[in-house]
């Protein structure tokens, strides 16, 4: 149990923060992609792994966050410090409204309704030309004003994109630390109880739906933060971001890393971005490779990467004791 006392979030943050100095511009790009995906996947895993809710529409909240932040910064010229929290709050409010209905359904029906809500978001952003840019999307979302960062010694000569990377990394680290606290808190324990046995949880007096809704709102809010960062990072928000197949991708990240562990989804995000980059150099058939990986995972390693390593570690330790 010593592993819990190591401040992993801080260590990972510090290591990742060296990328702009040690790596190329492309390395920074990849690292930022991994970091944002990690935040998105951890927010999903709050539902999937912690609460046992299979959401097939988590990308809706990512998308709401991306559009709220993008619209506020581009159309209304508001600063990042206003737009970013608004993105998370907007996504959380939408999660509250849609989640209110979703948690009333069980299992596959829950998955279908989350899918329906995410497609509603997609249909709106795809057609509402005046506000969302429709199928053209919202290109050229500005970077936040980072002059204050330039005045910090050592950060002044970095490119704006690298400075934004550091800002995004810091924000993501804080978000991950908060979610880690939430999962370890009594509230998080209740969520795990609900995952393991909703009937028994109800018997001991837990309001199952209320807790599930709370988890849904928190997960939606953090997904909104991830979306807001992603819109700025990729310099635009497009309707494709909200299409339902993106929800499947983030589920794959969580499963690939291991949904029983807090650090599973970030590992999955890292593995997936790295693999994507390796594979697309060789062939255009990335979906085929991803599908094959998914098959191997489902039939061979349902615990994912972290789950597999953990099992190996426990076995080794058991062997050493005996």
């Amino acid at each position, binding site marked *: 149990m010593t592993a819990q006392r190591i401040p992993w979030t801080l260590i990972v943050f510090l290591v990742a923060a060296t990328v702009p100095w040690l790596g190329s511009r492309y390395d920074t790009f990849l690292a930022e992609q991994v970091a944002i995906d990690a935040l998105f996947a951890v927010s999903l895993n709050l539902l999937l792994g912690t609460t046992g809710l299979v959401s097939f529409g988590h990308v809706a909240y990512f998308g709401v966050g991306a559009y709220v932040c993008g619209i506020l910064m581009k159309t209304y010229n508001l600063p990042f410090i206003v737009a970013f929290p608004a993105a998370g709050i907007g996504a959380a409010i939408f999660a509250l409204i849609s989640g209110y209905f979703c948690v009333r359904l069980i299992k596959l029906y829950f998955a279908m309704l989350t899918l329906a809500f995410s497609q509603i978001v997609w249909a709106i952003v795809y*057609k509402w030309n005046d506000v969302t840019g429709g199928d053209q999307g919202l290109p050229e979302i500005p970077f936040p004003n980072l002059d204050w960062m330039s005045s910090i010694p050592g950060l002044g000569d970095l490119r704006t994109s690298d400075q934004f990377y550091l800002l995004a990394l810091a924000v993501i680290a804080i978000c991950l630390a908060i979610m880690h606290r939430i999962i370890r808190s009594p509230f998080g324990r209740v969520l795990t109880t609900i995952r393991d046995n909703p009937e028994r949880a109800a018997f001991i007096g837990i309001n199952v739906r209320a807790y599930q809704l709370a988890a849904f709102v928190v997960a939606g809010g953090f997904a909104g933060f991830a979306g807001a960062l992603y819109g700025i990072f990729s310099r635009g928000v497009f309707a494709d971001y909200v299409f339902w197949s993106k929800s499947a991708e983030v589920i794959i990240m969580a499963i690939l890393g291991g949904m029983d562990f807090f650090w599973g989804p970030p590992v999955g995000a890292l593995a997936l971005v790295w693999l994507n980059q390796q594979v697309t150099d060789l062939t255009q*058939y990335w979906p085929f490779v991803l599908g094959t990986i998914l098959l191997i995972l489902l039939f061979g390693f349902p615990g994912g990467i972290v789950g597999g390593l953990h099992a190996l570690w426990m076995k080794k330790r058991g062997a050493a004791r005996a």
Partner: protein
Amino acid sequence: MAGSLLFSQFMGGFTTAMFLFLIASGLSLVFGVMRVINFAHGSFYMLGAYLAWQGMTWFQPLFGSFWLAALFAASGVALLGAVVERLFFRSLYGREELYQLLFTYALVLILGDAAKFLWGTNQLTVSTPPALSGGIQMFGTTQPLYNLFVMAVGPAIAFFGWLVLNRTGVGRMVRAAQMDREMLDALGANVGTIYTGMFVFSAFLAGLSGALVTPIQSIVPGMDVLIIVQAFIVVVIGGMGSFWGTFWGAVIYGQVLSFGILVFPSFSLFSVFALMAVILIVRPWGLFGRPLL
């Protein structure tokens, strides 16, 4: 003038509806019996379209080549369904829904790329079979004969499916498997064979509808993920697992989309998804289904 416009919207909506019914009925059957949402159903549909094109190029000089190609496509997809069910799907029945969903999604990814690899990314087209290439004048509009043919096939298959499910021994077994799998198993029925049979039949329907759509729509990569969401909506509206429900779900979907375009042009997509959400909220088992569990 206004009357003919309404009529042609109605007919357009009805054609869409009958295609969707053909596709969604297989999805609904698999859900009803196996409690699995098969994302790969759209991929089966797409493969049916590509195989029909392939069949057309092979059988071109023969008489009735389109029908031969359609049968070839549906059988090919059914065979693939059998392989998928026996080799992989079988071992996932006891597992959580998440794994089953992801398995079918893995198939979507693999089959989508396989189709790109085999047939490229260009649009492919199949010409209408000569016997059905004309049109008929109705209420001041010209209705293509082929669309009318599809409108007849949909109800025919619905009736046939209803007949098999409700009036035959096989149908009784399937309904029993829908209600209580363990009990049927305990009574000595071979549930595994029923499951394989259902999955293969559902794949056959998907392949057939893919083949039948080729004279109206060109075959493009990505048609799999577009159609599967529409088929979901139809199944949800009608009630997952209900055959007639799927039929009426398709009719409602087709008309909402068709007239939605007239009333609010940019929000017809929104209206069908909103309809799906509202039905899931108010009656999760659909308009014609029965509550489960």
